[in-house]
């Protein structure tokens, strides 16, 4: 997981453009950063630093590389610890070639041994460094830079998005295989990056590269070719969101901003798709898929959404299961004629992509539920359904989870039918209900009470089970505290041994049905061990009698209640993390979209 950027044609502003781009890509990695510009001399001019982007900025005060063409990189370590040496760009022995890379080169050890034997000196522990040396070999054998880069890439196995500059050549060479890469064109400049926000301040015209494609960016613009050197016709897309939407708008953290954006994100997700008075759901041709079975593949927060989605389909009479994508890819179940649905915010999650590819290989129909138009998942799957949550910058997913749940409700209504009469009004009310909750939430006060707890447990049943898991994941991600989510009924089968006076238990209980009564039984078990209980409830049941604190959600349909309960838990995690002084938007060891397996 790393972010790469490149640009050509920003006369005199190359360095500023690169650093600005890196600042927008920090969510992809932030343990080291660097830039390389072509300069005037025999060698490429490079500056790189371990640490956050500010450390690079400080280094650039001392020494600022110059040139008309440049590349940059923000790193999240996979091979070798974050040090100055391991930071990208990497160079060959002569300093003529500089390479930035996102992905993993699987056969790097063999290549490295081979190159070292033929006299190349390696300075870092990274897999990437074999690339500049391979390019150097090509240049030495008389190839032009274009051909040298191509030849180098034919030698490596694995996933990559790479960008290469060569001293004395005013061009950037780039290619992708299993890692995201997108081009941007302006009137007189061209850009490339792992993600659009990196250059969205300069242009909204973008070209998405496909796997196996090779691009050259120079003063003339861009050309895309395939592996055989034949020109590929690419369409230029226009991205319609505002770069400033990535700003914090006066909030302390992106996460809090994105929590408050949920009413708007939900309205966008539902827009034009739900008709209450007529009871119609409009999702294009997805309604005609009529699957006989569904398999979800997803990771992290999206996996929790998938668990919820699987329950929706089951309730509608369609057999459905949710799988962790990484497990699915290595030991796939029999698929039959099931529809395989990949849930991924970024559309670039490597584990989810490989699970979807595995399903595709077996002839399954695939559907991507994603937030990112033009992402790899969106392009590779047979069908795509966008959740339209808008860009999410905080590493901890918040609004995209809410939008995923809403989107899955629409999908199940469209594909499996069922009783729309109750759920459709509840979905239309959902943005207002979330707003009501945000206006009145007491989560901050509860966070104050429990900030010093040794562990946090979350329990829920049915649709609230994924919410319990998600509540625990948020708490882990941003507060660095131990937290676990359990199916409420599972508590007594083991985890209850962990419950003490020091460990608050958050119980999600809404409505007053069978499920609520059973969960209340589990709450009493907890209460008997003197653990503090925080009930997340709509007040319909008697759970408040057993709770030390209450987080209130508006009364609504049980499926919509899960979205609401989750918002309260997001707020609790946020405020606990804030009180503990954590790096909320960039938690340690984590990156926004994980593009390595």
């Amino acid at each position: 997981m790393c972010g790469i950027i490149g640009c050509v044609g920003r006369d005199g502003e190359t360095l500023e453009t690169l650093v600005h781009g890196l600042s927008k890509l920090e969510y992809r990695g932030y343990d080291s950063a660097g830039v390389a510009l072509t300069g005037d001399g025999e060698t490429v001019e490079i500056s790189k630093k371990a640490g956050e982007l500010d450390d690079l900025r400080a280094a650039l005060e001392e020494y600022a590389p110059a040139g008309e063409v440049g590349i940059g990189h923000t790193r999240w370590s996979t091979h070798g610890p974050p040090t100055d040496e391991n930071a990208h760009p990497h160079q060959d022995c002569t300093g003529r070639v500089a390479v930035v890379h996102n992905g993993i080169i699987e056969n790097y050890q063999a290549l490295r041994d081979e190159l070292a034997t033929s006299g190349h000196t390696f300075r870092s522990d990274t897999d990437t460094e074999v690339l500049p040396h391979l390019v150097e070999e090509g240049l030495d054998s008389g190839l032009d830079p274009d051909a040298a880069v191509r030849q180098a890439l034919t030698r490596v196995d694995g996933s990559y998005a790479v960008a290469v500059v060569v001293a004395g050549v005013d061009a950037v060479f780039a290619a992708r295989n299993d890692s995201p890469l997108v081009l941007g064109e302006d009137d007189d400049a061209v850009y490339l990056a792992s993600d659009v926000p990196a250059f969205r301040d300069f242009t909204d015209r973008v070209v998405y590269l496909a796997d196996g494609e090779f691009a050259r960016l120079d003063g003339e613009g861009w050309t895309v070719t395939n592996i055989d050197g034949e020109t590929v016709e690419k369409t230029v897309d226009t991205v319609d969101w505002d770069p400033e939407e990535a700003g914090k708008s006066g909030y302390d953290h992106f996460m809090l901003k994105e929590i408050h954006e949920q009413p708007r994100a939900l309205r966008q997700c539902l827009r034009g798709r739900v008709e209450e008075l007529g009871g119609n759901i409009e999702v294009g041709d997805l309604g005609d898929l009529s699957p006989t079975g569904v398999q979800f593949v997803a990771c992290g927060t999206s996996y929790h959404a998938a668990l919820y989605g699987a329950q929706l389909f089951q309730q509608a009479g369609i057999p459905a299961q949710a799988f962790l994508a990484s497990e699915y890819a290595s030991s796939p179940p029999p698929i039959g004629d099931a529809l395989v649905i990949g849930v991924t915010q970024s559309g670039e999650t490597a584990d989810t992509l490989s699970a979807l590819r595995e399903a595709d290989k077996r002839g399954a129909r695939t559907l991507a539920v994603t937030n990112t138009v033009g992402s790899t998942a969106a392009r590779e799957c047979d069908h795509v359904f966008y959740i339209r949550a808008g860009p999410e910058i905080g590493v901890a997913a918040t609004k995209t989870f809410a939008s995923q749940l809403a989107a899955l409700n629409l999908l199940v209504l469209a594909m499996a039918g069922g009783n729309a009469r109750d759920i459709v009004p509840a979905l239309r009310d959902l943005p207002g209900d979330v707003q009501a909750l945000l206006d009145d939430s007491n989560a901050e006060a509860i966070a104050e009470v429990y900030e010093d707890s040794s562990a946090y447990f979350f329990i829920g049943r049915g649709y609230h089970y994924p919410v319990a898991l998600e509540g625990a994941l948020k708490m882990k991600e941003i507060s660095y505290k131990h937290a676990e989510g359990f199916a409420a009924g599972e508590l007594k089968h083991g985890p209850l041994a962990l419950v003490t006076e020091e460990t608050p238990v958050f119980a999600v209980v809404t409505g007053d049905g069978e499920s609520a009564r059973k969960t209340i039984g589990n709450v009493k078990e907890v209460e008997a061990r003197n653990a503090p209980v925080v009930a997340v409830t709509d007040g319909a049941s008697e759970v408040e009698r057993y709770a030390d604190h209450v987080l209130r959600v508006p009364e609504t349909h049980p499926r919509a209640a899960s979205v609401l309960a989750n918002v309260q838990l997001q707020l609790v995690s946020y405020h606990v993390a804030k009180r503990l002084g954590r790096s909320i938007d960039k938690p340690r060891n984590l990156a926004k979209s994980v593009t390595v397996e």
Partner: protein
Amino acid sequence: MSVQTAVVLAAGEGTRLRPLTRNRPKPMLPAANRPILEHVLDALVDAGMQRLVLVVGYRRERVQEHVGPSYRGVPVEYVVQHKQLGSGHALLQARDAVDDALIVVNGDRIIEASAVESVVDAFDTDGVQSAVAVLERPDASRYGAVTLHDRDIADIVEKPDSDEYRLINGGIYAFGPAIFEAVDETPRAAGELGLTDTIATLADEARVRGVRIGGLWVDATYPWDLLEVSAEILARGRVNQPQRREGVWIDNDASVHDDATLRGPVVVGPDCEVGPGAVIGPEVALGRNVTVGPNATVERTVLDVDTRIEAGSTLQDTVLGQDVHLGVATTIPGGPSEVRVNQQVFENQRLGAVLGDRVRVRGDASFAPGTLVGPNVTVGTGTHVSGTIAEGAEVVR
């Protein structure tokens, strides 16, 4: 133009507009189907402002979430006024965010771009350090009243007792950067720092240009004023939705049944749904995601975001907050009525009812003209409601 930065004062609650301001500040109340603040920002952007500084305080997340980091491509910065201690104090919070000449406006009063331009022009050409918009109003004693000497401000008085004044302070100011010091030095009156006190002092010491402005200038003091404001906005067609025919604007993402009747002026916002047989208008604004059920009748009414009106309901002269649900056959007949706000009684107001955010009316309920209902109130079936209902109450027959 020399002035490129505008400071917008958007931190106040607007207590006289309760219960509508329970969850949001006054600038976020609807004028037709968009917040008042959007109209203010439109005027500033149209007048060529390159940078907007919003002073936020009360329920500030509502402003920040709505406006975001930029408005129509103009960058927006936020500064926080933690305690609302007057307009001068609010302006002072923006001190570190502004180095040059600036425009100051109120975020809760609708103005036109031409008025902003007039003030900037006067400031640029006359070589003064301060310029203030003034306009003629018959009811000048309700506002900050002003007298001019030549073209300069001679006197400025907040809500004077006498009715001899004809001109009022239009609430649009242009200042040089020295204004912050002048505000800082102004003595506080009863703990509050009013911007008009500073202007009165400045007018004594140096010239403060009074700039006459015309055009749209509306302010909501009491909840029923929102009906007037919305009517004014609709009459001038200040809405973003595409016009379908004279006085009828419907968003592309709204669905209006073929058998519904829209009587202009009326605006239907995004994601709205209007059922068969509904009659909507004149002077009705539907905010985002509003549902109006079959055969409902809505006249001279503002329905805010996420509101739902079920089949067969009738509403006249009514203002509804966000996410209000009115069950089947709810009836709110219009004014004239007598309305009580705090200790004051207002007679002969044309008002049906004002319902705060998230009021739930179960159905077959009716409201006496002039009823004010607080947020989160639940009204049972078949109930008749009148007077003022406190927040969170449950009204049963």
